[in-house]
């Protein structure tokens, strides 16, 4: 089951802006290693789930994984071959808005080499530049 809010006040949201850098959620807070976002954009629930599966498979469920982002924002899309107008499209996906500096995933209980390898696989599932970071 992909991540999505249990209940929302409004079904559709405006696109918003993604300016600036992340102001919070930028440190490795729970685990020993993390995957930090360097770009900005939307990461949808399917991508988050793909990353989670990739990390867990690679670590063979030895470590502990934290997902630091949550897709709070609904996005809509129009059905194919539809003319413009007639209102906004139907809710399609749930996305997390990420800015440079956001910590996406964290891992603990494994070696640095293993964590790095699993984070590389996760990074490949995202269309955003990322980097591997170690707790200070």
């Amino acid at each position: 089951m992909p991540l999505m809010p249990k209940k929302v006040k409004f079904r559709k949201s405006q696109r918003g802006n993604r300016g600036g850098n992340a102001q919070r959620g930028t440190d490795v807070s729970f685990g020993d290693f993390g995957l930090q976002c360097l770009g900005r954009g939307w990461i949808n629930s399917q991508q988050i789930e793909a990353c989670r599966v990739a990390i867990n498979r690679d670590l063979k469920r030895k470590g502990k994984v934290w997902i630091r982002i949550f897709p709070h924002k609904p996005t809509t899309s129009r059905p194919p071959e539809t003319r413009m107008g007639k209102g906004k499209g139907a809710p399609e996906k749930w996305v997390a808005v990420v800015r440079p500096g956001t910590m996406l995933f964290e891992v603990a209980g494994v070696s640095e080499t293993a964590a790095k390898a699993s984070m590389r696989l996760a990074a490949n599932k995202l269309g955003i530049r990322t980097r591997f970071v170690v707790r200070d």
Partner: protein
Amino acid sequence: MSKKLNLHATKRLGSGTSAVKKLRREGAVPGVIYGAAQDNYTIQVKSKEFENLLHHSAGENVLVNLQIEGAKEADKLAMVQEVQHNPLTGQIMHIDFHAVKEDEEVTAVVQVEIVGEAAGVKHGGLLDHQLHSLEVRCKPADLPGKIEVPVSHLEVGEAVHVGDIKPPGGVEFLLDGEVVIANVQEIKVGVAEEEAPAEEAEAASVEGEEGVEAKEAGEAAPES
């Protein structure tokens, strides 16, 4: 125990985003000093000097003897309360100094470091380090750089609590003794078994859809 290190600082006149940005470009770090029985004011320190000071200390809890140019009192004992970093570049953005008196107790947050490998980990367990920092109260001279927690005796299902750790001399832990610092968990094999059928079901559903499409295509072909 932390020892006093000397650090040169200058009283800062400008404030606001543009002024501090200019300072950073010139190789200085903006900061502020506050504390009991003194006025709060803004200061600046040389970036290189402060980075060297941090590199040569055990943790971020550093006791400094600030020599401030332009201030009423030339020497001031202060604790580094907070260091703000840029999350992308790691550059030091701002420093908070907390002016302290040698004979008065202070509250500080100290890093917790796990020492050794847990016995339970060797038997297939997973060490979960839950508490990474600990609030302590002590005199500035007694402030530890870090608190070491030995975990080599921990078996699977066991935990080390704040109450199990003997505080260094003159230091008092402010957290409840029952708070868990680290525990060794058994790795759940059930998750693997749970996930596998779900993936198979997914694969089956994809195959099923392909099968339907193929069937439809097959049906459509004779008609055309």
